[in-house]
């Protein structure tokens, strides 16, 4: 296994866009070539090594044999692991917006928190966040009909608003709470929320949203039966009927 570690040289005031921090981009390159990959800070185009200390194995290797370790605070670094198809990215602390954008495969593991737009338009692979995630986890881009289409996202903490907006496939699991409008316009993905949320499943047409805690349910959802999952009771709803949706919303019993 080839391993590369990246450490910020100093705290970033202006955020950095670093879609080149990805196993696929690193794979065919030597260490010195990796160091000269382009990153952007505002309107300044820089090399990776101008902003980060880059260390590790020199010899090119396939993406699936590559692990990128991010040491230190990457919360102002955007687009980490964008479009990655294989390999592993391990962040020891937090990462900035758009981590795992368009991800197709591999593992993106974040020990801290992830900012907004985590795994936007993801198609495959796995994203694991030990801390919290921001708004628009696994969503689509503005105006786009389709968000995440495949793969798996797990957040051990809480997530922000618009979780899995326009979800078309794949699964999202949030251990804590989710913000407003989780699973809006869900078209076929699976969302599990361990805590509570507000107005889940608005305009969902397919897919399943399970909320273990409390959820304010829209007036356009039809209450159906009570079901048991892993020994817990859930109230089942069908919706969103504004669009004749055939989605399933399950809310832990005991909530309103």
């Amino acid at each position, binding site marked *: 296994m080839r391993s590369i570690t990246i450490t910020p040289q100093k705290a970033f005031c202006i955020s950095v866009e670093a879609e080149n921090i990805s196993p696929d981009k690193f794979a065919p390159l030597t260490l010195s070539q990796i160091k000269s990959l382009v990153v952007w800070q505002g309107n300044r185009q820089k090399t990776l090594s101008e902003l980060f200390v880059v260390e590790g194995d020199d010899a090119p290797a396939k993406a699936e044999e590559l692990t990128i370790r991010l040491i230190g605070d990457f919360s102002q670094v955007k687009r980490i692991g964008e479009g990655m198809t294989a390999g592993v990215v391990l962040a020891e602390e937090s990462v900035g917006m758009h981590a795992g954008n368009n991800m197709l495969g591999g593992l993106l593991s974040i020990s801290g928190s992830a900012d907004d737009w985590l795994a936007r338009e993801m198609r495959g692979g796995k994203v694991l966040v030990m801390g919290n995630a921001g708004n628009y986890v696994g969503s689509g*881009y*503005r*105006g*786009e*009909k389709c968000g995440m289409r495949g793969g798996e996202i797990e957040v051990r903490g809480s997530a922000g608003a618009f979780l899995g907006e326009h979800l078309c496939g794949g699964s999202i699991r949030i251990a804590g709470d989710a913000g407003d409008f989780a699973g809006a316009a869900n078209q076929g993905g699976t969302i599990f929320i361990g805590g509570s949320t507000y107005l889940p499943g608005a305009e969902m047409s397919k897919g399943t949203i399970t909320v273990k805690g409390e959820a304010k349910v829209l007036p356009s959802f039809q209450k159906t039966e009570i079901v048991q999952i892993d020994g817990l009771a859930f109230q089942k709803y069908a919706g969103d009927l504004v669009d004749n949706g055939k989605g399933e919303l399950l809310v832990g019993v005991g909530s309103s």
Partner: protein
Amino acid sequence: MGGLKEMIIKGGIVYDPANGIYGEEMDLFIDQGRMALQAKGEEIDARGLLVMPGGVDAHSHIAGKKVNTGRIMRPDDARQGTEPRSAVCRPSTGYTVPNCYAMGYRYARMGYTTAFEAATPILEARHTHEELEEIPIIDKGALTLFGSNWQVKECVRDKDLAKLAANVAWGLCAARGYGVKIVNPGGGEAWGFGANVKGVNDPVPNFDVTPAEIITGLAQANEMLNLPHSIHLHFNNLGKPGNYTTAIETLDLLKDIKPSRMRQVVHVAHMQFSAYGGTSWRDFESKAPVIADYFNCHNHATMDMGQLLFGSATTMTADAPLEYGNARLTHNKWSNHDIELEESSGVVPMTYFRKMLVNAVQWAIGLELALLVNDPWKVLMTTDHPNGSPFVNYPEVVTLLMSKPKRDLEMATLHEQLPKRTTLAGLERELDWTDIAIMTRAAPARVLGLADKGHLGPGADGDVSIYNLRPDEVDTSLDHALVKKALANAMYTIKGGVVVSKEGRILAAPPGRTFWVDATVPQADADRLMIDLEEKFAKYYSIQIANYAVQDAYLPHANVIRAGLSVPQEVA
């Protein structure tokens, strides 16, 4: 712009059908931005290469409210096809609804130097001109909508042709427009209360007229004013199964009207969308052969294809009820915009699928029309950008027309029932470079009445496209991939004597001109008209008449063409 140097284009294989030149090796000269008999100066080596006049697009939605509405509602489209800013170029964004800069650059890259916006309401013409002015390089014009206008309908109802002509002239002047566009006549009015007209003889609500009367009235006024372009018509019932009968019925209304110039009496917009058989989408089929037959037997009409291609499109039209139908059918986002006293319009994103039979039939119909109409002067190549497909796909359309093997390859990927619904599979015709030069250059210029466009005779605009193709060597039937590639990025695009694009790279981005038509009418008719109009502004419009017309500030590169009653009939 400076840089109007002299220029010699050496040794190209020139297709200039308007001047009877069909693939001759010859030198071309440009002086002061215009084609000349002699010139010195910069030499461009075009030896053995395909040379044609700059392309002319007579029907494209490139500017104005609905185009911008398409952009605003589609950030998903804007992120396609982006190119960063460069020393010469502003940034480009978008595929079906590109930003203004991208449109200029992309037309220029393909060798096009002129494009006309197909539909502008008078009330919103200021916006259209703001955008047209921002489109670099190409020359432009905008057709003006009249088909649901209250004043027009009242003149038609009163059978006051002189006042109607005055109204058209006034509207063109107020909109700084180029010609008379009619979209689903009467439908815009009906849509004002959520309805539509069902055919040419269906009375228009609230006004005692029919679409047929509006169309013939405007056609007569158009000829009375001796306008360079004929009426430009989007039929009633467009986009509906079985609508070919409406098409024929409408064309028949106009066959006895005499043109005031050497041109058609009616230009039919995006014929593909009106050549539909069947009674519903289930038994939907092509009626292109019937339509083509009509065009082969009559000489008063021209059409543009409105070719549909698979993939992403954004439909936009002043036919607002059609767009509502599209939105309901596709469950897609829907924008609508009614324009008080004048029009309505709608915008709906669309994806055309290979495996969807209806889409495959629509694809075939456009091609059938172009291949079944014998005279290429009657068929302009368009995709009704961005309704059928974005204009950047013109090279694809050209290769489909020039290559039967290419069509067969495509058809093999389409719905298996396609051959039962269209005749395309049996059409052997393959167009040649003369046909293509006519359909993309000479004919659109003639149909629009642009004397200095679409040809390379002395005095014509110095707009020339040179492609990296050797007409004497390339087999356009077999080497369609090569042809497509060469057409996508002209070797050189020369606009007004300036090399604006070379092998896909934009070298210069001068502003283009905007054509509009100023038609004179007898003062008495204008005076009678003003009484009506002043009342309409006082009672119904939400703005003052003094703030209505487009000010000259919006056309810093105007090119005015005079027409009207006092202009002697042109003898071509």
